[in-house]
């Protein structure tokens, strides 16, 4: 679960390896200190060690692997077009990861991270310019998706400063914004392959899974988020925090009791499942077995989380009843 499953096609494998080697070439052209940073896993994945970044295979497949997840729909592109867009998309996605870390204050060298972000972003756009003429309707999508990205990040900052801003529509805008740089790659591939009609389906599928992904993160990490004072949509649905102007003291016990009383984890895991179903439905008409398998894998994982959560609540409710009837 979670790893990119490449299509069983030697050309797909070769193209994937080629994008990785282009990333290494990009790192080699950077000033030495930035090149070193770009080769470290922790720069993108937050791991505390000095492990080397293994390239795009190290990332969650959705971040830079979408050209392969929608392979059957996109393999008609020639090698040069496919590679240039996949490289540009990968750099663009890496730039957005770095920007997230800078904004969340998780980047361990924020000044250098800002410079590396600029290098990734600039090179990413250079690749897209090389692949698509200025007359291409891709550039209108690029502008729209860049605006979505910015709006999502700004909404996140606003919600961290004032939790009352964190409404459902804000949360959805944030999730859509987060996935927009990834949709840029698919927009470029759809336009370059002469299939503009597939973009709305791929975009909807990505946006729906982005909402599901964020919810799943927030349900699973609510205690860590509370300790860190990180405002999430899920936390703002827990009664002690509902409608509050600021996150109160980190009362994990009270929040846990409130989640248990209303089975909030169950409710929001069901909402997550609904978004995953929408994601699969949006892509149903496309030739993308790899993508559909990926979405289905996460649907099953979410359903397993739901089973565990329901069982936990049932034990909590039934134990005292059984003990009462036995005494």
């Amino acid at each position, binding site marked *: 679960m979670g790893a990119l499953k490449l299509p069983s096609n030697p050309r797909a494998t070769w193209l994937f390896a080629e994008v990785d080697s282009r990333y290494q070439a990009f790192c080699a052209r950077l000033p030495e200190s930035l090149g070193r940073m770009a080769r470290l896993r922790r720069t993108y994945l937050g791991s505390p060690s000095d492990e080397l970044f293994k390239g795009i295979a190290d990332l969650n497949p959705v971040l830079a692997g979408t050209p392969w997840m929608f392979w059957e729909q996109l393999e008609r592109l020639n090698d040069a077009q496919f590679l240039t867009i996949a490289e540009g998309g990968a750099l663009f996605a890496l730039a957005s990861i770095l920007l997230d870390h800078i904004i969340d204050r998780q980047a361990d060298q924020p000044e250098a991270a800002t410079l590396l972000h600029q290098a990734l972003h600039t090179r990413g756009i250079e690749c897209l310019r090389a692949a698509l003429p200025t007359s291409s309707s891709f550039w209108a999508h690029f502008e729209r998706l860049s605006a979505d990205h910015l709006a999502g990040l700004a909404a996140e900052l606003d919600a961290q400063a004032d939790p009352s801003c964190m409404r459902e529509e804000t949360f959805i805008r944030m999730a859509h914004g987060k996935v927009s740089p990834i949709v840029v790659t698919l927009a470029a591939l759809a336009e370059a392959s002469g299939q503009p009609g597939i973009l709305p389906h791929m975009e909807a599928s990505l946006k729906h899974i*982005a909402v599901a*992904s964020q919810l799943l993160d927030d349900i699973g990490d609510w205690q860590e988020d509370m300790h860190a004072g990180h405002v999430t949509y899920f936390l703002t649905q827990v009664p002690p925090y509902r409608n509050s102007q600021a996150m109160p003291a980190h009362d994990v016990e009270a929040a846990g009791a409130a989640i248990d009383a209303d089975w909030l984890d*169950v409710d929001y895991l069901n909402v997550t499942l609904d978004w995953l179903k929408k994601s699969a439905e949006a892509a149903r008409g496309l030739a993308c077995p790899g993508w559909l398998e990926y979405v289905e894998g996460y649907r099953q*994982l979410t359903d397993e989380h739901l089973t565990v959560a329901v069982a936990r609540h049932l034990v909590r409710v*039934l*134990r005292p*009843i059984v003990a009462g*009837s036995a005494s």
Partner: protein
Amino acid sequence: MAAKETPSSREHWDKLIRLIELAKKSRTLSNTMRHGKPSEVVAALRDQVGLSAEEVAMILDDLELIADRGSVRWWSPLG
């Protein structure tokens, strides 16, 4: 999960799975479990899942095993 061998324990296991699936999907059962009085919970389990009070006691340990599955990874699709 505990191995199920005898016909009677198999029946209890099937009812346990039915209980979990219904509690996931049925708003009526789920609401009773969340907010009902003990007598309402017992009646709902009997009427909607076919579980007697004695059977509830028998399935609790298996239910707890499922609740304690700590190996499910919280890994999101875009994480």
